[in-house]
């Protein structure tokens, strides 16, 4: 038993103080307003305060913090992307994550499990090889392995996938991790709050005040707030905010679903992703299998679950793990994924002065929470995006200068 816990438990002081204040009365104006109290918005607030000393900041969350995709995601953190720009960016995030529990002093259960992207066909293996080559080039640990090595890491996996789609190899990525999603939001919230940032829950942004191409303030369910800097970090709600700003993006919203089994004793120690079978799975520290699939094929702004999703997913799970027939699915859910054409985010400045965009996080944004917070904070502080996120600028779609990550993000998230 760690001493810390004993000290904490035996002290009369517990419960500990509030993670963050219960703010309900916004001031008339702030130096910066952040729309969206998901991981990204909260992280941006934290780094605005910590890295740039900008603490007169309000985070506005229409529901409760972490209640958007942050609290729905399956928490895979990795950096084995396909483009050098993507790999560099996500790698920077992984590096922050590795020390984040200590920095925020909250156990994020950041658990490095190793990540296998399974290939069932030669052409899939080719993409793995491509990713491995680029990763190696950038200095990220990933390489192609054969079926034997996969079996060694996960002896329970049926390499033949019940004879239907034999596994021919995989891309292995040692740093692949999972984490407790809520804790990431709470940790950033507490950190930001302790430096003076005010977090407003149940506070919805209903309009933007833009005059002569400059942001002047936001209209909210708690009244008008004046400010010269607004960050939109609302993931699946991005089109609503960008519509208010009159900013065009190619973002479309598709539901992404996931489900979880009842808890069982630990047996799956790696993260497995199969593009061909449209399934990925890890076992949480609580013992549940956390499972997901690729995006729903149609555009719809909804978080309803569908039966065919879970039917398809479980059938592929059984191909990989035939012994799971009587293990039960407890719960399924969905989030709204803000998809971009090239499976990369949209980050940085916009045509509206003082209006910054952190969006297009689709199915892959949890892993980027720390680095996007950090780089968006820098963008807001300097009114200019740092080098690291320039490849993700909004104008790339006009310039046909895409950062194509489809091959690395369509099921792998």
């Amino acid at each position, binding site marked *: 038993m760690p001493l810390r*816990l004993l000290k904490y438990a035996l002290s009369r002081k517990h419960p500990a103080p509030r993670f963050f204040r219960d703010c309900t009365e916004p001031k008339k104006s702030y130096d910066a307003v952040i729309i969206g109290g998901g991981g990204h918005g909260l992280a941006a607030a934290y780094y605005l305060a910590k890295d740039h000393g900008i603490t007169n900041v309000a985070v506005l969350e229409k529901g409760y913090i972490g209640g958007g995709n942050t609290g729905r995601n399956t928490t895979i953190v990795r950096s084995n992307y396909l483009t050098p720009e993507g790999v560099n960016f996500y790698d920077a995030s992984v590096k922050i994550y590795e020390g984040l*529990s200590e920095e925020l002093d909250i156990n994020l259960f950041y658990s490095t499990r190793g990540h296998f992207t399974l290939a069932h066909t030669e052409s899939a293996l080719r993409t793995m090889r491509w990713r491995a*080559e680029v990763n190696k080039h950038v200095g990220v640990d990933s390489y192609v392995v054969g079926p034997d090595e996969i079996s060694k890491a996960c002896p329970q996996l049926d390499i033949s996938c019940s004879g239907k789609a034999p596994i021919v190899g995989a891309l292995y990525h040692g740093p692949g991790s999972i984490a407790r999603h809520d804790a990431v939001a709470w940790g950033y919230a507490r950190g930001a709050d302790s430096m003076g940032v005010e977090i407003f829950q149940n506070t919805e942004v209903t309009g933007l005040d833009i005059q002569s191409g400059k942001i002047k303030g936001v209209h909210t369910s708690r009244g008008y707030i004046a400010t010269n800097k607004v960050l939109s970090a609302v993931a699946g709600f991005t089109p609503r905010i960008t519509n208010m700003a009159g900013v065009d993006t190619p973002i479309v919203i598709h539901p992404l679903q996931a489900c979880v089994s009842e*808890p069982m004793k*630990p047996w799956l120690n790696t993260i497995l992703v199969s593009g061909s079978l449209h399934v990925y799975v890890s076992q949480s520290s609580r013992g549940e299998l956390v499972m997901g699939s690729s995006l729903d094929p149609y555009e719809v702004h909804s978080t309803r679950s569908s039966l065919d999703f879970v039917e398809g997913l479980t059938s592929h799970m059984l191909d990989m793990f035939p012994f799971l027939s009587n293990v039960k699915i407890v719960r399924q859910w969905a989030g709204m994924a803000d998809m971009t054409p090239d499976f990369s985010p949209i980050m940085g400045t916009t045509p509206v002065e003082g209006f910054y965009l952190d969006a297009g996080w689709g199915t892959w944004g949890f892993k980027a929470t720390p680095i996007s917070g950090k780089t968006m904070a820098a963008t807001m502080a300097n009114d200019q995006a740092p080098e690291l996120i320039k490849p993700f600028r909004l104008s790339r779609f006009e310039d046909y200068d895409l950062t194509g990550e489809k091959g690395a993000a369509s099921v792998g998230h």
Partner: protein
Amino acid sequence: MSKRLPQRASEWLKRDKPISFYFEGQKYQAYEGDTISSALWAAGETVLGRSFKYHRPRGVLSLANHDVNVMLADGTDTNMRGDVLPVQDGMQLTVVNTDGGVKNDKKRFIDAISSILPVGFYYKAFHTPRSLFPFWENIIRKSAGLGVVNFNYPRELKRKLHTHCDLLIIGAGPTGLTAALMAAPHGVNIIVVDENAQAGGSLSYDLGGSDESAKRLADLLAELAKYPNVTLRTGAYAAGYYTDHLIPIVETTGITKVRAKAVIVASGAFEQPPVFRNNDLPGVMLATAAQRLLARYATKPCESAVVFAANKQGYRAAMDLLDAGVTVKAIVDLRAEGEPCSLVDAIKSRGVAIYNGACVYEVLPAANKFGVKGAVICSYDEASAKPLLHDRFTLACDGIIMSAGWAPAAALLYQAGTGMRYEKSAEQFVPAKLPAGMFAAGKVNGIFDLAQRLQDGARAASEALTYLGKQVPSVTVDREYIASPSHPYPMVEHPKGKNFVDFDEDISIKDFVHAAQEGFDNIELMKRFTTVGMGPSQGKHSNMNAIRILARIRQLPVERIGTTTARPFFHPTPIGHLAGRGLHPHRLTTLHGWHEAHDAEFTDVGVWKRPAWYRRAGLEKQQAIYEEALAVRKAAGMIDVGTLGKLEVRGPDAAEFLERFYTGSFKTQKIGRTRYALLLDEAGVMVDDGIACRIAEDYFYITASTTNAAAVYREMQRWLQIWQLDVGLVNVTGAYGGINLAGPAARGILSRLTLRPLDDASLPFGAVCDTEIAGVPARLIRVGFVSDLAFEMHVPAGSAQHVWNALLENGAAEGLRPFGTDTQRLLRLEMGNHLIGQDTDGLTQPFEAGSEGAIQFEKPFFIGQRSLQIIARKPLNKRLVPFTLSEGYQGETINECNLVIGADGNIKGRVTSIAFSPTVGRFIGFAYVDPANVAEGAAFNIRTDSGSLVMARVAATPFVQLQSEA
């Protein structure tokens, strides 16, 4: 000591079918019809499981599928729920998640140190120093989880059925059965489902000391049985609600997906435990659990009970206990006013003391906490929700029967999007606004009195019938409460805690208080921080109390707190059920049998199985492929291309359609000629290619790649709808077989099978004609993908084998051999043809791939044109070039996807194809390189797997000419 009662009219036991089973190594007797829990309880066993976190002994709580602490394993299966699973002869059961057995669980020490494991403790420790986290995580993971998965559990795929009905009724309790009976005479097709082994719901156990309920149930069922249009399915739960009234019904045998026109949810309510110290000990149970034990399983819950009540249900249970010979020491009623109903007098007359405005302050545990020794009772101030200890006293007893309220079993209603409101008079959430076609009745609708429930069932039936277009009179229900069935705040604080709200997760009142103090004072945040409702029972017995506690902490009315979102599934549902039989469709050409018989090694291409190459005695794969390739170069080879997409585009606007769809020009295309057809998406990315054959002025026959055929056809249909052209589209992929015959001897072989002249003048490259081959009508196309002399024959799929055989026979002398897709890839590479998908990726545009030649920029429109116009103005980043390695290259193997590295050390591109060509005698391939460096002969560096650089040179294509020219 046995608690089994003599046979009762209401029981579900088959007394003539005694069985025996083992639990934790000890043998027990039971009857068929028992659940595991009822059998053990009847045998006098009290410790049926251990709690998840503190490893406290647990017994029966609900007997209604949320006794999550009684999870068992039988050597094959795990996490089996004792409260509802029928016991079977010979079962060998152990309790999951114990260390040393259920009685001697070594982990029980955690209960004693629980104070140092406050709510959310794991967020506050174990992460510093970070190097130690993996160590702690390992311990945490091992103590979490429930059962151990059996890696040898057989793969079971359950059947799946689909059915439709006019009216689906969920719940065969008095409300649901009445609804069914009301609707039945109106000729609608009705399905009634109930998760219990037998129909009846509360009528099957809630007897209130008389047999009236049992009789009413028998009558209802007898009446209903007369209607052939009503199907009653028991042991069947509605697992979730999905759009448009799609409701999967789960039975042991499999899932039935019901699509209903209208749905009546009569799923009742879950009884909720009042919260007091040690309310989890074996022997403390919900009143409805006690009633289930008594009525269904003829088992006494205890010998001597204290009933802790805050509603009428407690009194009905007390009557049942008395009738079964259980001593009722007292009824402790939380309400100052007490119970208004007439049962009070009946109970008093049997000598039972009733204490109003009182609570069970704590339960005194028997030795090892294996049961109940007594109850400490004291006054209770309802307004402040405080126990008043001044008058406390102790009653000895071995059971506490508790009944303080309900939570609606409204999961499906929530999933369907029902707006709920808090009905103060019932202290319960009830439906406020139901979606079209959904109806709710009975307890789930906040109606508890039996007579009123029957009315409500009739009311729902009448509304559902009206919705279904029937003319029926409306029914009204008087929603009158003499007293609320639920207590607004059935919580008893205790300084030592262990007053549990969530039994799955061992969460007690103070955990909520602490969570709120730490800022998690929103119901969703509280759920996530405390994990209330996240266990396998999904909050069935805990969410409502959590909401009440939070409302009290925040001093808000319950409705302002709201509920957490209910998501499928209603009960955890097995993977094998959901998966169903698992259909993995794949397609075979009509030649598949022949390929199999001739040792083809198959590969998956899209949904098709295709021969990759043919095994040959004594030859390694690579050697076999070389031989197939050499046959094509030296004589002839043929490949089954029946998998190619084949699309007919017909109509006056056919040429216009293609002109817009593909990048080339088709209006000028002559009949009897083919043209290359390149498809882009709107961003200008290369998607697919094929050839367009003009068969008539208004008739094109298009091929698409095997993998993309379905997608291309789909895109065609989509665009056609947008453009509204006068064109018909037919996907004839499966209707025609296809054979590609290639090589210098191809013409000779084919000419013996057709009267059609095949010379260059009569059938030049790019020509297409309809003719006969081997007596079969065929479309013959002169192509050049794998060889400069090649013929593609498309024949009716049923005749492909005939033509294939005829070719084989005729070509035997020349050395004609079949070849597979691996060989095809080598051959096309030798020809210098790139492959979309292999040499391009999801972002490649024609300028990068060197496909500008296929684009008619001047056309008014084609898909992707606008993008290309912009891209054309930008500098290129990379360009696909053919290359060769130096002659006689012996170095490290170059693999596809090895990177092309520039002088500055940066990535310039990658190898997309590479192979050794036995014809050319060199390694040849395609790679993306710096566009400044694409002249023939230009050198560039490829980095191998091990990191060394190998020089390659841009080459001319086709590669095969290299040799002939040399």
